[in-house]
């Protein structure tokens, strides 16, 4: 079984996003970038499946400008077998529906049995792309998973989904798309020898324009503002009684 892991390069999650006043967009020039944390978890899970003998091949895909190759190489250094780079001309505002169409095309071409990806990218926070892929391909879907196991006959998987009311366990027929939550695993670091090895692993470049997919934005960003967090004028208290009195006066107790 082939596993496809779509990954995304995002602003480092520990960096504050800033708005460029001129472009009215989030400024990513010279910003520190990293692999989306949920994608790292997806890569780790795919590698575990490969190591257990359940997967024949792991393939990582990402879409973007040339810099995206860095993120693909990171995944290769973690241990993924090969990479597919969908190259865009310049920074396009690709939305989950576009990404879903592009990825669905490649997933079909590769005849992948399983797609493992992050539940959301921490830049746009859409939480949509995995679901859209499952809809386009009519694959079974397991979102927000924190546990994963393959059945003995390798025809289905059992997943634990972290949902608002608790944990839902479902059996998904293969082929399937799963989107991973934080607690699924602890992603590994790439060792230095593996980083060296990753340089010679296969990386196929596909021009987005060759795929004949309409990528006209459906939802246009008109403006962005930094909402951040307002500092509040904190009042210091020094005892439980004082705190409870303050809260009673504020009318919240």
């Amino acid at each position, binding site marked *: 079984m082939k596993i496809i892991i779509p990954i995304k390069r995002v602003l480092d999650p520990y960096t504050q996003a800033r*708005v460029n006043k001129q472009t009215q967009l989030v400024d990513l020039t010279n910003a520190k970038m990293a692999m989306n944390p949920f994608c790292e978890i997806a890569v780790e899970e795919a590698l575990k499946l490969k190591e257990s003998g359940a997967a024949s091949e792991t393939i990582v895909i990402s879409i973007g400008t040339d810099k995206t190759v860095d993120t693909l190489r990171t995944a290769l250094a973690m241990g993924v077998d090969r990479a597919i780079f969908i190259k865009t001309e310049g920074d396009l505002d690709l939305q989950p529906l576009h990404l879903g169409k592009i990825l669905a095309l490649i997933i079909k071409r590769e005849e992948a049995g399983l797609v493992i990806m992050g539940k959301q990218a921490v830049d746009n926070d859409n*939480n949509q*792309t995995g679901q859209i892929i499952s809809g386009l391909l009519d694959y079974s879907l397991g979102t927000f998973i924190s546990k994963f196991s393959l059945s003995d006959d390798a025809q289905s998987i059992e997943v634990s989904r972290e949902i608002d009311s608790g944990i839902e*366990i479902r059996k998904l027929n293969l082929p399937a798309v799963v989107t991973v939550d934080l607690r699924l695993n602890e992603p590994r670091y790439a060792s230095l020898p593996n980083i060296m090895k990753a340089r010679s692993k296969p990386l196929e470049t596909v021009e987005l324009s060759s795929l004949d997919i309409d990528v006209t934005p*459906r939802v246009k960003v008109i403006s*962005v503002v930094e909402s951040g967090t307002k500092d509040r004028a904190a009042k210091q208290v020094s005892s439980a009684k004082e705190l409870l009195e303050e809260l009673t006066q504020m009318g919240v107790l």
Partner: protein
Amino acid sequence: MSALVLIELHGAEISANSRAAVTAATQLSDTVDALVLTNDAANASAVAAIRGINTVKVIADAALEHVSAGIASKLIAGVMSDYQYLVAGSATYSKNIVPVVGALLDAQPISDVCEVKSANTFTRPLYAGNIMATVESSDEKILLTVRATSFDHAEDGGSATIEELSVDVPESNSTFISLQESQSERPELTTADRIVSGGRGLGSKENFALIEQLADKLDAAVGASRAAVDAGFISNDYQVGQTGKVVAPKLYMAIGISGAIQHLAGMKDSQVIVVINNDSDAPMARMADLVWNTDLFGAVQELIDNA
């Protein structure tokens, strides 16, 4: 053109986020209908009582109790031929389903809408809520999930017509096995007036029990930072933040929480924020209305004793 609200039910109980979705839908359209996917058609009567809904459309089938996203989306897409908008409250239920509907209708859904600015213009958060974007949709059918903390929750007092649709439920490619429900006597996290939330500073699962005791004393819900969840102090459904739940209670008490931006994203709209920590430099303190820099355990115990 009219709007369809996807209602999330737990048994016969209507999820609070669905009530927020009704309010958002009434801002978009004069005709708001609701869609209920359920195992029991009788559950629709509670939905018909929500003010603002015209007609409640019900698809009832035993297979819909723990419906898969694949089946739900096919049923919804079928009903959507009569509607311009699909509105659902942001929650794992809708996040699982609405994007799949988008794939079927060739529409780009808009997640976590905080404000309806016009018929096709909305605001939504990016980057853990550090950025608020105004976005405009050019789709024919507009699919939205809306933040439950950003819209009033539509109240009862209506009397909608109930219309049961007879639709064949397609075969599913996934099977429900079980649901391990979080058992709690406490108020529900996303709708609670008061939340007592604990972080890594508590040090252990045993110490986290103090948070639960204090919450019980204050009739509050329990919350947690991602660090506390990662450390195994409490399960993930208590997580407040970018990848957890978004809350806006009257009172938010952050105890032993350092205040990573991902956590602030989930609670910054709280009315009154209290920070109790032994680290006065933690970013959480900047967010606070009231700060108590002290030994955590002594403080929480003192609060339990005095509350």
